[in-house]
C-alpha cells in the first residue's frame, strides 16, 4: 500500500466515530465512510499534502450534507420516528445526548463533534466547514446552548426542516 493509502487507512477509526455521531446510525455512518474512502482514493491528485485527517473530515462532512439535502428533497413515506439510537439506549424515552444532538442544525452538530469528539482546533473546523472562525464559534455556542436547554428539560425548539 502506498503512503497515501496508509494515511487514509489510519484515519478510518476516527472517521467512523465522527460519522456515527453525525448520523446517529451505524449503517448510515459506515455508508458515508465508505463513500468518503472511495472519493479520497480516487482523488489522490487533489491532495496536496497537509493534514490528511482534516481533508477526510471535509469530504465526509460534505457528503453528509448532500445526503441530508437529498433526503429532504425526496418525498418519502417512511414513518417518522426518532432515530433508533435514541429509542433503544438505556435512557430510552429520556433526554439523552443522542436526542439532544438530533435537535441541532447540521452545521452546529458537525462543528461541535469535530471539536469535542475529534479534537480539531477552531481553525481546522473552519477549514473543514469552509467558513470563517467566527462562524464556527457561533455554531459551537448555539449548539451548546441548545443542548443544555434540551437536557435541562426545556421544550425543544421546532426543528427546522431544510
Amino acid at each position, binding site marked *: 500500500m502506498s503512503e497515501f493509502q496508509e494515511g487514509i487507512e489510519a484515519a*478510518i477509526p476516527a472517521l467512523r466515530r465522527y460519522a456515527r455521531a453525525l448520523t446517529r446510525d451505524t449503517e448510515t455512518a459506515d455508508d458515508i465512510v465508505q463513500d468518503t474512502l472511495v472519493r479520497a482514493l480516487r482523488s489522490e491528485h487533489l491532495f496536496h499534502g497537509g493534514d490528511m485527517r482534516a481533508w477526510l473530515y471535509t469530504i465526509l462532512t460534505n457528503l453528509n450534507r448532500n445526503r441530508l439535502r437529498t433526503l429532504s428533497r425526496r418525498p418519502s413515506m417512511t414513518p417518522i420516528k426518532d432515530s433508533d439510537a435514541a429509542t433503544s439506549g438505556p435512557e430510552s424515552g429520556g433526554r439523552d445526548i443522542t436526542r439532544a444532538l438530533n435537535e441541532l442544525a447540521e452545521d452546529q452538530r458537525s462543528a461541535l463533534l469535530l471539536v469535542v469528539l475529534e479534537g480539531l482546533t477552531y481553525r481546522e473546523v473552519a477549514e473543514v466547514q469552509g467558513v470563517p472562525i467566527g462562524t464556527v464559534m457561533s455554531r459551537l455556542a448555539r449548539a451548546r446552548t441548545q443542548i443544555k436547554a434540551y437536557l435541562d428539560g426545556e421544550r425543544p425548539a421546532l426543528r427546522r426542516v431544510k
Partner: protein
Amino acid sequence: MIDRDQIVSEDELNAYVDGELPADRRNAVEAWLATHLDDAAKVAAWRKQAELIRARYGAAADEKPPQRLDVRRLTRRRYGAIAAAIAATVAAFVVGGAAGWTARGFEAPPPSDLARFTTDALDAYRLYVVEVRHPVEVSGDQRPHLVEWLSKRVGSPLRAPELDKMGLKLVGGRLLPGPTGATAFFMYEGPSGERFTLYCGHTTDQASALRYTVGEQNAAYYWVDGNLAYVLSGPAERDKLHAIAQAAYDQIDRRAPLQGG
C-alpha cells in the same frame, strides 16, 4: 492588548472550554468564573456535554471496521471497476411474490434502492409480460413519441436501448408508479416470444455495477447511471440476461452521446 477586567464573552467561555485561549486570557477567565457562578455552571454543563458525547460515541473508533471499509478492497475494486461491472455481484436473496423478498444465507440488508427497484420491476415484469393484447400503453413503432413522453414524466432524458442485434424488438412502453415516483417501463420481445423489460426511475443510489437478482422463474439486473436506476428483467437465464443488460448498459451510459430516441 487585552484588558483583564473586560467582561468575558460567551465566545471566550467556549474557547476556554476547548483549550483555544492564550494563557493570559485563560487566567482572566478563571478569575472571572470564580466570581460569576452562573457562567461557571455553564462551563461545567458544556464540559459534561462533551463527556457525554465522548462516552456515547468514543468507542466507535475502537471497533474493528467492517470489510467493506477495507482500503485494499476498495482500491482493488477501483482498478477492477470494469471487470466488476461485467462480473456482476450475485445477490443471494430470492425474490418472492407481492411479499417482496426474503433473505437467505445472510441477514437482510435494509431496503435499499436496489431492493425496492428490483422488487417493483419484477412485479411489473410478471404482471405485464403475460399480457397478450395490452402489454404496453404506447407501442414500439412510435419510439420517438414513447421516449419523449416517458422522459418528460420521469423528469430525465431517457433512451430506449436498441436491442435488435440481440434479436429483440421494442414492443413499447408504459408509465408506472415506482419507489421514487414516475417510472418508465420498456418491453422487448424475442423471436420466440420471450419478453424482457427495462424499468427505470430516479435514485440517489451511488453504485453503478450490474447487480444480479434471481427469483423462481425470472431474474433481474440492476444498475445505476447518474441519477437513474435501471432494472432489466427477464427469464432466469443468467448469461442471456447478462448479455442484454450489458448491451443496454453500454447504450445508456451517460458518457455516450444521446441519439434521437
